[in-house]
């Protein structure tokens, strides 16, 4: 009964937090709700194997992130190709506005985006992110570095385009 209660508490008290993470991974509410529900039910189906009730949210979060990545992998062939963005160098430290960031984040690969969300939104250390994604800490470091480069590049290009329009 303790596990049943823990699930009810998780759904009622922690769904917002899970949905926020899912939203940042998927980019829209419908997919986020589907993803969280799918993860909750997947763990619930295996609830009798849960040894640590206190770690329930962690199990759900791991399932959520991994199923998002595998789902994106399945869907990748159906996705519309992204727009071409000029490959412009961007100097580190140069300011960009937050409005330019979101489109750039949505164009990251699923793993890069997951790393960005888990590191910068969830404030998780790289070792924990590696455990969640089922890869090495080195791989996380690499995804993070590439994601930052892509964000800098794309955000700066968008800023330049916007500036050009104004001119």
């Amino acid at each position, binding site marked *: *009964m303790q596990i*049943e*209660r823990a*699930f*009810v508490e998780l*759904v*009622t008290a922690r*769904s*917002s937090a899970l*949905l*926020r*993470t899912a*939203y*940042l991974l998927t980019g829209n*509410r419908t997919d*986020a*709700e589907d993803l*969280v*529900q799918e993860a*909750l*039910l997947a763990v*619930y*189906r295996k609830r009798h194997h849960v040894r640590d009730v206190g770690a329930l949210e962690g199990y759900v979060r791991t399932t959520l992130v991994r199923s998002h990545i595998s789902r994106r992998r399945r869907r990748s062939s159906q996705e519309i190709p992204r727009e071409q963005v000029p490959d412009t160098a961007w100097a*580190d*430290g140069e300011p*960009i506005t*937050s409005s330019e*960031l*979101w489109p750039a*984040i949505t164009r990251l690969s699923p793993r890069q985006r997951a790393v*960005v*969300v888990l590191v*910068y*939104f969830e*404030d998780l250390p790289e070792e924990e992110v590696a455990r969640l994604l089922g890869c090495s800490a080195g791989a996380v470091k690499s995804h993070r570095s590439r994601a*930052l480069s892509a*964000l*800098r590049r794309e955000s700066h290009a968008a800023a330049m385009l916007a500036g050009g329009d104004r001119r």
Partner: protein
Amino acid sequence: MEVLIGDHLEAAARHMDVDPAWSRAVLRRMARQRVVRRRVAASVACLCMAAASVLVTAVGHSIRVDDTPVGGGPHRLVDVGGGRDLYLSCRGTAPAGSPTVLMDADLGAGPRSFGNLPAALTAGLEVCTYDRAGTGRSDAASSFPRTAADLADDIAAVVEAGHLSDQVLLVSSGFSAMTATVFAAEHPDLLAGLILLDPIGPDVASSELSALGGRAPGEPRLVTDLRNSLTSDARSQNGEQVSWPASEQLARELLDRPGPAFGAIPVAVLWSERGREVLPALPAAVRRAWWEAVTAGQRAYAAESSVSDLHEVRGAVAAPATEAPDEVARTIRRLAAADAH
């Protein structure tokens, strides 16, 4: 840059609040998984029992799987007549003049559904649970379908043959409130008080049916399924073969009689504050009517006693005994102490 990313993600996610309908749907789907699991387990158990029965018949022997001692002791088989034994489990000791607390689980559930509540009450009280006929270690009844009246008679037989105190405080969950209603009418001398946990009123099903309304083209599949289940007597397809409509009818007749059905017997009705969360994911107006039907049924029980107490159990969703055992235990102790005085 990295701080900016964090701030931006925070701002982007800020508007993502939980839609209550969504979280209820998730809880509902979890509840459905539990039902499916139980049904699969029941089917497997039925197949195993059928196979065992064929084997026993073939070799011409009768076997008794249960090795539980008969007679006294905390766990025992009680002869309730008709060649049937019911399994009774008691703990603690009732002080002189104090009633025994007897717990009757919801239909489809057993004593385990009370969790640690019985153990938490043993200081200063005798607390008993029993397996209804055809469940757990108890023998099955000989004729079917059964009704709340048969179940009430079984309780009376357990109290008398089990040598419990002269009177019991009956803790009834869900459907068992109907059994308790019949028990109060037929055996008031054995009853010191009633604690009804999330009781289901006899008119709830018809009110729920009214809330669903007539069949409309293009209505959600869930609405159609619920209407079918409420009109097809699917609720009587339980392992104990207890007829729900016949039991409802019995309870309704008793509650509809002039005057309070429970008289001066103390009655405490406890309902789950967050019970709405496990209601079906219906359109908002139907859900409101559905919830009103559920709570009206609960209020109806409290109104049948001149000494009643009706209150919500904070934090409980569907099982007050396990979700808020302290509060339920306090209520039981209060009624037991009042009776002892």
